[in-house]
């Protein structure tokens, strides 16, 4: 290893490393499979309006089975399920990443502060984190909706708020080992201010776990947003959101004559969660390997 390092550098190490990580990702089947699934839904979300039917267009056939004109059948209002499943990707692909990003930014900042200062700061913030972690998502969502009303923004805030302590804990443990390294002492020995040490010295070194945590959380976010919508705490109807679609039609499952409006949105949720998880696994492997 050291012998390899001994060679005079020809290319910037950063570019080499980035190149290698991309190389590993491009060869990882897990990552490629995840990227394909997620990429499919992203394309659906972007081009739905251009290439597909209006998801709110009504037809005379209600709760129809799949056919040539309605590939996935129709729902209780006679809307095309295929068009709604495609269109449903849009909301969730806005809300889930936004919420995860919010949670990651807040959680990273909190984790850096907790890990770096330790002592009383860590103790107090740590208890708060535990307190937030002990709240069920549904209760937080319920409180938020009661106070500000259901909307995309509310959902983003709720999920972001719930994710913050989880990400903070991961970042904190990474910072704990990082702060013992001597480059941090060296920074202290030139009287750097804490924000500089946190964000300019330590943060770049804990970005890998942050990125892995972001992708892992993204999968959970898709799942959580769908659950909240299903329970009526998320995106309000008539949005073609998958969770809302399932919620609207699960009553028709008894008797078995209207499986389609529940099955296809459910599969869509499952595929997106799996796709994001594969992506997360691929990225984590890329960093390790």
């Amino acid at each position: 290893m050291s012998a390899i390092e001994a060679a005079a550098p020809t290319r910037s190490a950063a570019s080499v490393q980035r190149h290698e990580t991309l190389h590993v990702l491009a060869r990882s089947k897990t990552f490629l499979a995840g990227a394909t699934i997620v990429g499919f839904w992203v394309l659906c979300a972007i081009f739905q309006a251009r290439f597909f039917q209006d998801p709110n267009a009504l037809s005379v056939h209600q709760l129809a089975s799949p056919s040539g004109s309605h590939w996935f059948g129709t729902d209780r209002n006679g809307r095309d399920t295929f068009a709604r499943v495609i269109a449903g990707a849009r909301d969730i692909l806005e809300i889930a990443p936004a919420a995860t990003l919010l949670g990651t930014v807040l959680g990273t900042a909190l984790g850096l502060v907790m890990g770096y200062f330790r002592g009383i700061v860590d103790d107090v913030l740590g208890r708060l984190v535990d307190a937030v972690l002990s709240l069920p998502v549904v209760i937080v969502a319920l409180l938020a909706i009661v106070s500000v009303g259901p909307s995309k923004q509310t959902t983003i805030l709720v999920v972001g708020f719930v994710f913050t302590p989880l990400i903070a804990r991961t970042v904190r443990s990474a910072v704990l080992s990082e702060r013992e390294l001597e480059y941090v002492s060296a920074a202290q020995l030139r009287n750097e201010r804490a924000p500089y040490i946190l964000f300019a010295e330590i943060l770049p070194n804990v970005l890998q776990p942050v990125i892995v945590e972001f992708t892992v959380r993204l999968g959970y976010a898709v799942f959580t947003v769908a659950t909240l919508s299903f329970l009526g705490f998320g995106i309000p109807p008539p949005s073609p959101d998958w969770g809302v679609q399932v919620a609207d039609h699960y009553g028709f499952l008894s008797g078995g004559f209207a499986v389609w409006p529940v099955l296809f949105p459910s599969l869509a949720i499952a595929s997106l969660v799996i796709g994001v998880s594969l992506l997360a696994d691929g990225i984590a492997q890329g960093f390790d390997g």
Partner: protein
Amino acid sequence: MREAISETAGEPPASAAALEVGELDVAYRVRGVNRQVLRSLSFTIAAGESYGLVGESGCGKSTAALAAVRYLPRNGRVLGGSVSIAGRDLLAMHGEELRRTRASDVSMVYQDPGRALNPSIQVGRQVAEVYEIAGAKGGEARAQAEQMLRKVQIADPGSVMRRYPHQLSGGMQQRIVIAMALASNPALLILDEPTTGLDATVEAEVLDLVATLRQEFSSSVLFISHNLGVISKMCDRVGVLYAGKLVEEGDAETVFNDPHHPYTVGLLRCLPRGGQRKDHGRLDTIPGFLPVPGADLPGCVFAERCAFADDRCRTEPPPPVDVGGGHTSRCWYHEKAQSLPRDTPSELPEVASPVTAGRPVLRAGAVSKTYRQAGSDVHALAGVTLEILAGETLGLVGESGSGKTTFARCLLGITAPDEGSTLELDDQPLAATTGKRSGEQVRAIQIVFQNPDSALNRRHTVRRIIGRALTKLAGLKGDAREQRLQELTRSVKLAERFLSVRPSSLSGGLKQRVAIARAFAGNPKLVVCDEPTSALDVSVQATILNLLADLQRDQQVSYLFISHDLGVVRYLSDRIAVLYLGRLMEVAAAEVVFAAPHHPYTEALLSAVPTIEGGDRPRIKLEGDIPSAADPPSGCVFHTRCPRRLGAICDEQEPPLAEVEPGHLLRCHIPIDDLRTMQSGSQPAPA
């Protein structure tokens, strides 16, 4: 025991060599490309022989050891050649047979004993397990384990067996590992840097133990180390490895005293030896870098860095030439190897100005540091009073746990010393923590850390690392900063092209130069060097020591130089302070400390260092490990281990740190003249 094993393992020919490696080629597959690390390596270890492999890191020493037991990492491949242990071809073995051979005929001891032991299993269980694998039953295995621990000189095996690895000191852990390695009574014992992480005193004990056990068990030993002194002490024969090729081989004594390969010559010259000091001249260095693994080396592997190299060296690989008495060298010019021109001038360009002695830069008064740990007080430092003069190097030595680093941290303000401690910089009081010190004071005291890997932010470029220090410490901006940056990188002899890279693409030596440049950014008055070369190879160490000596001469900076390597300390230090359990034992000019009379602890430290020219000088053994600072011994803290203890007075009364001769402080009840008489017989050789 031995008979039982040879039955299960087949009948090896009686005269077989313990290990025979023939024309071995090993490569690591990295991103689809085979990178050759061993190049037709051949060597033989006769039964009962101790064979040493030396070379710098990256030469393939550890790969050779792993290949010898066919235990290469997953991407390692044997491309050709043969390995046989006790006459049986290892490369032809499969599954169970290979496993059996490894279990019964070979044992390995690695560098870090803490990692070789399972932290959650009692050590007795772990040792007994080796006997169980060999077929012993529960109680019997435990009894054998206990007996084995007694053989590795563990005083109270019964209680040690019930402990967990973290409850034992490093030296003790390494003894347990050695006990486990010898439990199967192996034909071959492979020791891969077994004492590298240990203190000199502990190292000496472990080496003595290995030497004793080797006689008792008549095992052959493959000893791998970068430390030439250790190899010379432990081995009958030695092979010098460079870029995966054995460049020189022969009797340890002949190779080290009469080397016939330029690499060996260079390596030996890198070591500060024979009392060499910075004002006598600079250490020699080996120019250039080790070739990258897998590099295409058509000629001599060392040609690129050799002053003799000509066209023949670059195109035609030299064969091993016998230079007499089984001593071989792979060099076309082996007969003139010893006249290798120096890489650095041995004479200083100008006569170094003697230290402008007198004015103390830093004054530490009764500095103590007490940590509270699990309800009890741990006295890491107890009243250290010390002055560091302008432009001088104060060497700080002592075993680990003696408080060297704590003292440095107190000076720097990373750790606040106890109430009542005083620190003064240029006669101005120094606040306890960095944050409370003035900008001037902060830049005046800087540090070069031991491990450049963790001391440099791996996400920042070299330019940013040094530039930020210039901004914060020297208050420079824009063009002025850029100009100073260029000056600084030139003064640490760092090529400008390295400014744009991150530390990971620099070698250890280059990283340490960056760290030195950072420390010098604010024109410091005192630089703490905390083991700055212990993570580096000897040839790199020499360049860093030369650099530190040059910077000191040019800038009149003072150093507090902490190191466990006494040769290095001696080279760079003007005065030396010896620390034991947080107390100063001896302070004097470097030459005074190294020459008798000295404190019994200093005497033991000096005698523990294995040297190349050492021969068999009497070694003063220290009993046991350094006592816990939470419960220091009464009286003189050293009395529990002191080989020259007077009697009750040592146990009861702490001797003062008294000036026994002008400039020579000593904390001992024994009068200086008595010490002189006692130690005149056992003058330690120069480290």
